[in-house]
């Protein structure tokens, strides 16, 4: 029973799989109609110009641009290389080919996809260019046309699931077509059609005396024989010449092995025990009543009742060397054994190279789908570079029962989207204005009668709107990440202030390891994990430093967690390859590196985890987002800082008290009193009586106070710690008090108080203050590099079930190369075994810079100005070297081992040419800060080849910087945050980058630096710019109701107290923050009502109209909610946004979200229903149709027909054109005779003739068949 359920389920699953998994990996295409076209040209015209029109993939790779980013790229109809409709540069497009700059081909008229069809033969080809179609063409790329509908074509005892047109052709060929016997049945799915074949009645067809054929009734009819249903030709009662035999055969369309009679007719299912049984040759025995019913009978020598789903299918015994008891055929076992597990025919499962998910996929790994196909395990590698992942399900429910069936599929890996989500806004709190706007737009939507026809619906809608819009938080990155396929939120929590969330792919993508074209992108992606943790310290009271924030960044955990973050992005940082070999490309500064033991643990990821597989994800099961994205990691200081004791305030307080008390004694130090009175109105603080009582001691108190202050100041000047300064202060206070109490110096020296003070001061000198600057702990994440050498290359060739690929091979070693690519005999080999030649470095020629030159030396070169001297400070200096073989190069300011060198020269790949640009600071700036900066600089360069051989000696690049007085103002070299702002935004953070350390100010007026009213925060320190381009200053710019010009100026050398020595900008850096006059809103979403079709699927255009907001509007849509939106294909420029969708029947709900470049967002949703009716349109939208109007639901019918005086009169339900034909109901529209246009038509008729009438509505929509068949009598 279970076998039957499984078999039945397999049928359902296999048919469903054709669509369901297709849907998973589907990429929707869209068509767009636009203006001028050159549609009269043909593809051949273009191809003929391409030298024979022959194109090989090698040429494609050589010439094809990687992206559209190149200048002027666009859609080219026919390129010089022979590509049709591809993105390329204009010069690569043949001269008279249509070209649309900046456009995707899917959005151009000349590359629009459509359906090419021939309804007579029932042939429908999807996604065809109009130029390429030799038959009829309509704009629907998915061919959702009535004639494309599939049904079950019954051809005798055989069935085919196909279009009606194809069935007509097949019926003719199989001699079923005479007398209109075309048995095409709708409402039968593919599986049912298959079983329908088994239900066709067959029997003996006695054609003439002695001659018999075992066929269906219809076939027998075409032979003109006598049909005996259910009888075999060997039935004695039929008196045929056909006799029993011991021969067997396989039958088309059937799984089993069948006996064959002496006339060649099929008998019953092979059963060796009944070969001599005469009764078994009389009549048909159903397979349910035959041997081994319900089983697959795989490898049974005696029973041929095969069932492909249960484990057997008819095959030749001799070809398989199988011993069968009778005949030559048997049921071949269709199950497979793999890794000790038995799989049924059609089962598929995932195989991995190691652990998967959570960013643990190892470099070079791939997901594999294996399939058991008729007893053979077939390999289906998912797309390399982990661009696809293998998902697997095991249990399914069929009719309430659980069925185990392994089912795997390769689906697109959404890893890029996960990384993109990190550019989403951080958790923004919804402002009151935003709440109001949200409520207004949602409330307005609730009033849509079509969507919410009843009051209950409206109330529900309003409640939901109120609830949604009352939320304080907008949708955040973590929310989106959690709701997005294949993404995960990684919480990086290393230290108290170094904690943030990041969206990472569950299955990181792989990078082209040795392809220089992709290195920049790879470096940028990996660079996301290059972060700095600032460990904040403060000096202890009694000397030494204590940690205020981020102490844990100094532990090994920092490197470990940052490397996990780094390799979670892709092939970055330190990771192992498919054979567990570790290789790392990362830099950790000021924190321990990764330990050997920790690295060794990573090799476990190269071993597959039993039972682990990627499951089909369910959006609803995503975990709620947790944590907050911290954006750029710049820990703030002081949040939890211990409140330091303010000794200065204590000292001042004590002294103040003393001064106040001393005021009562006119004999005592009146001068001091009078001086102090200028500052504090003491008499206002204490009553006079009190002052008089303590007057005698006031002099001592004053002395103590002064002594304390002086001691404190001296302690700080001497660099004592807090405790040391306090001791010195107390010592000073004691001496001061002794002085005030003693009339003479001699007396003072004799007082113990004085000597206590001296002792305290001496002791305080032992408590020196420690300098405790913050520690910048860096992690630099770079693209992963393969281990040097090529010892492991052959490992790629060992497993025939995991064929080697370029990516796989290159992950095994920097020296590994894939040979015989594309031959089927690919091998991964060591490209240069026994290499003993190190790379040799030379200066790269062809590089120059303004105001300077290069001078070659013995083993290196010098960078000089155009007079051979030193170069100006902060001048960009390009340097370039060439190596004799592909190598990686690094440099540093001191001679170091290659691995210890900090700076990369050139990219991450093994290259010939290595270049970098840097600038040098003014030495005087460093010197002024106590740094030992000189004007001379030497850079030491080393290179290493793929086999680990390093360049001999040290290659030195020398230069020097002009020293002298700095008279140059800082340059603003970059900015961030300027441009457009949201409608509700009241202030904007703007970042300014200067080429040297500076302070910056801004104002709404273009005035001198000193007059500018707003300081910017410039937190960088000399020699440690926080931006790759220079030193950063941030400011919060207030925004009014209209756009304003903002002026920024900077001044260098902030450490210089004398501003006259500093240089300020004489001209302002000006920018504008533009605010829209209104917020973006969604005006209309179509469709929003009922769409009637008569196909299973239909193609609709989801159209969204927006207004307000900024210049560019971008809209996204989703079927499941606002958490996971897909950007509409045609969006960004216009106010109408279009996405073509292929939808089935039923109720649909589509969520829409639109945003503009200002960051404002508008949301809406539409609900509509697709129902299956009697008629459907034949074509799509007509060009020039009114914007926003659907071209789908128009249905034309004839409401009345009558004949009057030889004329036939028609009334239509709307305006249209009708034509007639005599040939049949499905005549070609072009061949029909026009009756006229309008909603009331008439035409003269000939009596007795049969007229087939078709009508087309005003939009050009044509029902699938004629509307009327009439005969005038």
């Amino acid at each position, binding site marked *: 029973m279970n076998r039957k359920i499984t078999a039945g389920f397999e049928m359902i699953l296999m048919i469903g799989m054709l669509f369901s998994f297709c849907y998973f990996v589907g990429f929707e295409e869209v068509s767009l109609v636009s203006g001028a076209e050159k549609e009269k040209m043909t593809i051949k015209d273009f191809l003929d110009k391409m030298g024979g029109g022959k194109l090989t993939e090698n040429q*494609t790779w050589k010439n094809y641009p990687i*992206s559209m980013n190149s200048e002027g790229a666009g859609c080219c109809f026919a390129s010089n290389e022979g590509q049709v409709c591809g993105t390329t540069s204009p010069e690569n497009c043949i001269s008279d080919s249509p070209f649309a700059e900046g456009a995707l081909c899917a959005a151009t008229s000349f590359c629009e996809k459509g359906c090419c069809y021939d309804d007579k033969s029932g042939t429908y080809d999807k996604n065809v260019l109009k130029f390429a179609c030799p038959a009829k063409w309509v704009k629907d790329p998915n061919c959702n046309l009535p004639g494309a509908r599939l049904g079950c074509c019954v051809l005798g005892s055989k069935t085919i699931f196909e279009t009606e047109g194809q069935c007509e052709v097949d019926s003719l060929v199989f001699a079923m077509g005479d007398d209109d016997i075309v048995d095409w049945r709708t409402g039968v799915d593919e599986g049912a059609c298959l079983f329908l074949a088994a239900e066709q009645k067959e029997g003996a067809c006695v054609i003439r005396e002695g001659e018999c054929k075992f066929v269906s009734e219809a076939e027998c009819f075409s032979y003109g024989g006598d049909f005996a249903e259910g009888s075999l030709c060997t039935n004695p009662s039929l008196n045929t010449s056909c006799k029993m035999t011991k021969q067997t055969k396989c039958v088309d369309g059937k799984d089993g092995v069948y006996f064959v009679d002496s006339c060649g007719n099929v008998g019953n299912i092979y059963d060796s025990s009944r070969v001599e049984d005469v009764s078994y040759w009389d009549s048909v025995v159903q397979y349910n009543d035959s041997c081994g019913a319900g089983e697959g009978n795989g490898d049974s020598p005696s029973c041929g009742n095969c069932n492909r789903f249960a484990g057997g299918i008819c095959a030749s015994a001799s070809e398989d060397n199988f011993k069968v008891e009778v005949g030559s055929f048997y049921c071949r076992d269709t199950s497979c054994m793999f890794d000790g597990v038995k799989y049924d025919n059609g089962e598929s499962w995932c195989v991995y190279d190691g652990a998967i998910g959570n960013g643990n996929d190892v470099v070079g790994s791939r997901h594999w789908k294996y399939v058991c196909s008729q007893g053979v395990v077939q390999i289906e590698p998912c797309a390399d570079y982990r661009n696809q992942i293998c998902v697997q399900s095991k249990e399914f429910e069929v009719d309430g029962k659980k069925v185990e069936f392994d089912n795997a599929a390769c689906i697109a890996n959404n890893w890029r989207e996960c990384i993109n989500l990190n550019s989403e806004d951080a958790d923004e709190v919804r402002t009151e204005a935003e709440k109001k706007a949200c409520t207004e737009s949602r409330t307005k939507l609730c009033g849509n009668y079509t969507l919410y026809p009843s009051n209950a619906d409206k109330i529900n809608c309003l409640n939901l709107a109120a609830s949604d819009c009352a939320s304080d938080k907008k949708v955040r990155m973590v929310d989106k990440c959690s709701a997005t396929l294949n993404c995960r939120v990684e919480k990086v929590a290393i230290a108290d202030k170094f904690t943030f969330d990041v969206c990472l792919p569950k299955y990181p993508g792989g990078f082209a390891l040795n392809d220089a074209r992709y290195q920049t992108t790879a470096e940028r992606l990996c660079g996301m994990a290059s972060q700095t943790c600032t460990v904040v310290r403060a000096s202890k009271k009694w000397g030494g430093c204590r940690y205020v924030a981020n102490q844990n960044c100094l532990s090994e955990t920092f490197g470990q967690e940052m490397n996990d973050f780094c390799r979670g992005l892709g092939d970055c940082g330190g990771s192992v390859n498919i054979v567990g070999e570790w290789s790392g490309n990362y830099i950790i500064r000021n924190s321990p590196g990764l330990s050997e033991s920790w690295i060794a643990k990573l090799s476990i990821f190269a071993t597959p985890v039993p039972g682990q597989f990627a499951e089909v994800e369910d959006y609803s099961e995503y975990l709620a987002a947790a944590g907050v994205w911290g954006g750029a990691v710049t820990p703030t200081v002081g949040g939890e800082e211990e409140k330091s004791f303010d000794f200065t305030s204590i000292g001042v307080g004590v002294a103040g008290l003393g001064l106040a008390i001393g005021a009562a004694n006119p004999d005592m130090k009146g001068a001091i009193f009078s001086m102090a009175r200028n500052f504090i109105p003491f008499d206002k603080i204490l009553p006079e009586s009190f002052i008089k009582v303590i007057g005698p001691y006031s002099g001592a108190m004053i002395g103590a106070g002064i002594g304390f202050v002086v001691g404190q100041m001296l302690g700080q000047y001497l660099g004592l710690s807090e405790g040391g300064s306090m001791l010195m202060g107390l010592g000073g206070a004691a001496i001061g008090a002794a002085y005030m109490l003693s009339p003479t110096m001699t007396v003072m020296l004799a007082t113990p108080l004085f000597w206590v003070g001296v002792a305290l001061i001496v002791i305080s000198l032992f408590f020196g203050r420690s300098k405790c600057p913050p520690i910048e702990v860096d992690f630099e994440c770079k693209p992963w590099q393969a281990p040097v050498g090529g010892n492991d290359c052959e490992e790629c060739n060992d497993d025939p079930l995991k064929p080697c690929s370029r990516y796989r091979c290159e992950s095994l070693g920097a020296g590994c190369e894939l040979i015989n690519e*594309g031959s089927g005999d690919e091998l991964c080999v060591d490209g240069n075994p026994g290499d003993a030649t190190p790379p040799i470095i030379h200066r790269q020629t062809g590089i120059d810079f303004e105001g300077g030159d290069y001078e070659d030396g013995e083993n290196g070169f010098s960078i000089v100005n155009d007079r051979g001297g030193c170069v100006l400070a902060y001048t960009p200096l390009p340097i370039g070297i060439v190596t004799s073989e592909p190598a990686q190069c690094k440099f540093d300011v001191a001679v170091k081992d290659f691995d210890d060198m900090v700076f990369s020269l050139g990219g991450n790949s093994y290259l010939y040419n290595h270049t970098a640009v840097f600038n040098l600071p003014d030495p005087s700036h460093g010197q002024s800060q106590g740094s030992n900066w000189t004007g001379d600089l030497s850079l030491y360069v080393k290179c290493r080849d793929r086999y680990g051989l390093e360049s001999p000696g040290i290659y030195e690049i020398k230069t020097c910087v002009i020293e002298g007085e700095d008279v140059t103002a800082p340059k603003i070299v970059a900015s961030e945050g300027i441009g457009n702002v949201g409608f509700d935004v009241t202030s904007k953070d703007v970042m300014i980058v200067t080429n040297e350390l500076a302070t910056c100010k801004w104002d709404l007026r273009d005035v001198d630096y000193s007059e500018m009213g707003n300081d910017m925060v410039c937190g960088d320190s000399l020699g440690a710019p926080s931006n790759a381009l220079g030193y950063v200053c941030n400011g919060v710019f207030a925004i009014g109701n209209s756009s304003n010009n903002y002026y920024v100026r900077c001044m260098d050398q902030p450490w210089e107290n004398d501003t006259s020595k500093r240089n300020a900008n004489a001209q302002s850096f000006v920018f504008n923050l533009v605010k829209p006059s209104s917020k973006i809103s969604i005006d209309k979403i179509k469709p929003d009502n009922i769409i009637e079709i008569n196909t299973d699927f239909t193609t609709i255009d989801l159209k969204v109209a927006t207004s307000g907001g900024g210049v560019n509007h971008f809209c996204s849509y989703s079927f499941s909610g606002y958490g996971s939106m897909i950007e509409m294909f045609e969006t960004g420029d216009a106010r109408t946004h279009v996405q073509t969708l292929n939808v089935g029947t039923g109720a649909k709900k589509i969520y829409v979200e639109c945003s503009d470049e200002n960051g404002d967002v508008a949301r809406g949703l539409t609900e509509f229903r697709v129902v299956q009716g009697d008629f459907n349109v034949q074509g799509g939208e007509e060009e020039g149709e009114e914007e926003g109007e659907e071209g789908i639901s128009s249905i034309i019918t004839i409401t009345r027909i009558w004949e009057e005086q030889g004329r036939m009169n028609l009334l239509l339900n709307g305006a249209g054109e009708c034509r007639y034909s005599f040939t049949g109901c499905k005549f070609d529209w072009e061949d029909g005779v026009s009756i006229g246009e309008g909603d009331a038509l008439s035409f003269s008729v000939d009596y007795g003739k049969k007229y087939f009438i078709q009508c087309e509505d005003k939009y050009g929509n044509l029902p699938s068949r004629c509307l009327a068949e009439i005969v005038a009598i």
Partner: protein
Amino acid sequence: MGEKNGKRAQVTIFIIVAIMIVVVILGLIYLMNRGGEAVRPSDLGPRDFIAGCVGDVVRDSVDKMLENGGEILPSQAISYQGNEWGYLCYQADFYQGCYNIHPMLELQIESEIERDTSVGVQSCFNSMREDFENRGYDVKGGATEYSVDLLPGYVKVSLKKDIEISSESGAKSFNDFSLEVVSPIYNLVRVTREIVNSESQFCYFEYNGYMLLYPEYDIRRVDYRDSKMYRVIDRRSGDEFKFAVRSCAFAPGI
């Protein structure tokens, strides 16, 4: 005595057997040599000769179509395993579904076969004419009507040409030389259409599920670079249709 006679008889039998073996071998050699000679039209009759000759020409062309994705020479192809695999669906850009670049494939193949075989068909008639003329016949021919149709299970070759072969003893006319070449190409092209339609719409074809429903086909797919190389095999005949698809190609690392 009896023993001696027995031995003699035994020797005689051996000799007879040896002679028979030699005769059989010589006979086989003769027959094989004879078979190596070209069959002359005049031996078979014009209709049978043309059927055989044109059948071979068309069969070769069909094989070419199967090998090259439905073209005599693939117009857009990728080199794989030493052969050029013709693209039936191609998208130059990354991440986009492919364009079906050879719609109405049956029609294309029919015209390609006609184009490819027209010279060969004419050669068949020329051979026939030469042979008959060498034997003293007078041969007259009219215009040729030639078309090829792919149909389920076979290729229908419609070939009409007025041929009159005459000699002193009389004349005989022939007109219809139509024939059928057994080939699964029609069915393979239908499966190919399913694949191309699915690849262009979904960037994917669930060929394993398809094979479960239609076990008579063996569909193999190999991913090479960013293309998919398909082989659609008719299990019964072993004939296979080869083509390539580039749809929703992924860029590595970006």
